[in-house]
């Protein structure tokens, strides 16, 4: 029951809304914007937290959690299957390679870093395609239809998009792991903090939950060239910069592939320009499947 409702997400460190990441985001916001009480006040105002769009986020979070548990996870190809298939494929196609023996600290450290970077890169590209391929945009616009942002907006994602991102994860983690097993054998593992990838943990701690909020937290300009700040993601959600800042944790992909934007902090308007938003759960689920019909 807890799993179906998604409540377990608050106590699992590999989830974005893990309580510690939420508290750290709140602390960052309070400390950094303590002299700008209007910003904090707005985030916690009824106007934002009880906006029809926010109310949809809450209902959507519970509904999509159930869909994931009951329909997506049982049917989706897992990283395990990809790993086994790919290691056997590599051996059969490229032959046997003598296992490379390196110190565990380097093996585990490089694996943890590589899986984080590879995962971030594939997230960038799939996210970009979700915007640029018309068929995919039909599903991704559910996420961008949010007119106000809160941490649960992260989960306002159509189940079709969940499936695509799940497959992406299986292929990415599976491929990286298979390559490591092929060259280094057993002994690989992830450096973890409280059960999450070390780098993910750090990224989540430095305000990941402010990405979907009205708190314009920015990092120093030099840092924003490498790590995407919450404000840069808010720009992505604004009606004018939807085709910029596709990245998740790292901004290098946006920088290298020409989609990075930062500039001065300005007042942003979130949502979609070209349509009246739907605030119904059924509409969010079904509209992308029935292009002409609005529920």
């Amino acid at each position, binding site marked *: 029951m807890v799993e179906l409702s998604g409540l377990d997400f608050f106590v699992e460190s590999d989830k974005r809304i893990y309580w510690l990441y939420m508290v750290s985001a709140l602390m960052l916001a309070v400390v950094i914007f303590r002299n700008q009480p209007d910003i904090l006040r707005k985030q916690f105002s009824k106007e934002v937290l009880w906006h029809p769009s926010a109310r949809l986020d809450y209902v959507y979070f519970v509904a999509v959690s159930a869909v994931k548990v009951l329909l997506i996870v049982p049917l989706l190809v897992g990283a395990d299957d990809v790993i086994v298939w790919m290691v056997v494929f590599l051996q059969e196609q490229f032959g046997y390679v003598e296992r490379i023996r390196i110190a565990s600290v380097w093996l585990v450290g490089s694996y943890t870093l590589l899986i984080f970077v590879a995962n971030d890169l594939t997230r960038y590209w799939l996210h970009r395609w979700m915007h640029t391929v018309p068929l995919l945009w039909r599903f991704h616009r559910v996420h961008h239809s949010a007119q106000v942002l809160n941490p649960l907006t992260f989960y306002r994602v159509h189940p079709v998009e969940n499936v695509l991102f799940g497959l992406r994860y299986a292929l990415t983690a599976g491929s990286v792991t298979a390559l490591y097993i092929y060259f280094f054998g057993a*002994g690989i593992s992830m*450096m973890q903090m409280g*059960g999450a990838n070390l780098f993910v943990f750090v990224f989540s701690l430095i305000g990941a939950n402010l990405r979907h909020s009205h708190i314009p937290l920015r990092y120093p300009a030099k840092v924003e060239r490498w790590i995407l700040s919450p404000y840069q993601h808010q720009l992505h959600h604004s009606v004018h910069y939807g085709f910029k800042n596709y990245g998740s944790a790292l901004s290098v992909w946006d920088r290298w592939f020409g989609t990075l934007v930062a500039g001065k902090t300005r007042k942003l308007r979130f949502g979609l320009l070209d349509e009246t938003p739907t605030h119904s759960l059924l509409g969010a689920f079904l509209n992308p499947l029935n292009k002409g019909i609005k529920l």
Partner: protein
Amino acid sequence: MKHKMIKSLLLALAVLLAGCGSDNAYDGTELIGSNTPTTPEENAMLSVQTQVFQKHATALKQSITQMRQSISTFEQNLTANEVSSLQTQFETLMTEWKSVEAGYVAADYDESLIDTPSAIDFFHTGNVDVAADVQKALDQTGDIESALFKNSSKTITALEYMLFGTATPLDEMVGLMNKDDKRRVNACDVALKNLEAQASKIETFYQNDTKFAANITDASNALANVLIDSSFKLKEWRIGEPSGIALKYAGNPDSNRFEYAKSKRSLEAMRAILLTHQEIMGEQSYANFGSFASQNGAQSVVIAIRKQISDALALLNQFNTPIEEAINGTSVDAKIDTLYATTKELQRLYYESLIQALSLTAEIIEADGD
């Protein structure tokens, strides 16, 4: 002012993290540092596996020493019985080596033992024609030890050629063994001397090592690696390539590619390998790696692994003649196809258990978009 703010922020985060206690402990130390076995099951498993490895290393060394002793008793020309006895002793030595090789974890703990297997056995290593080199040394007239200067000429592969020629009939082998004042017999002793030295190194390692039993994670990794390696080589090199099932020789079978084609003992080598897998993973009266993995959540995959090992062994028992004779031109006995499929599944299951044990399925931060 700005620095003061950053400092207070960092302090606050540090306090927050510290307050979370073990919930947020840095698990990396557990993964890359010492992981001493604590439970009786872990200690029992490591102790038993060490004993198994020691047992095979000692048996290997004894079989070599025994063979050298037999050779040292030959004063006159060898009889057919004596040559046949040497050939039987070769089979024992070779199968003991296969047992050591199939569970060879020593290289993970002692770098000086990484190359030892290639000094014992020369299979699937480079393009050296060991038989041609040995024959060249036999055809010379000088000191046989100097003539066999190449390391590969003193391996089990070389010894096989010295004792069996190219699957040469026994009566012909007797003549060859006695030729040139028993030069071939002396060559055998040179090879055995090398093998004895190499086997001693391995035996000494297993008798004195304390590292294997000191770290359960490293030991599990070493065991997983050696089983995966061994199952791959069994499937691909020892079965797939001779039978033309492996991609490299697809549709082009050749029984000469079997590991011990000259002695026609390849089936015995395969059996020894699988029996070692059974000792490590199979259902035994003692706690082994299989029972340990089973108790740690891999029960279903361990059951499947055990079945594949038993099936493969049962298939080997169905061959009434040497496996080399199951390939005739382009015709390959269907049992070899089944054996290949069984060992392929075995290797896949080993990977599956490894991946389960590594818990790599933990998602990096969910599979959602952003």
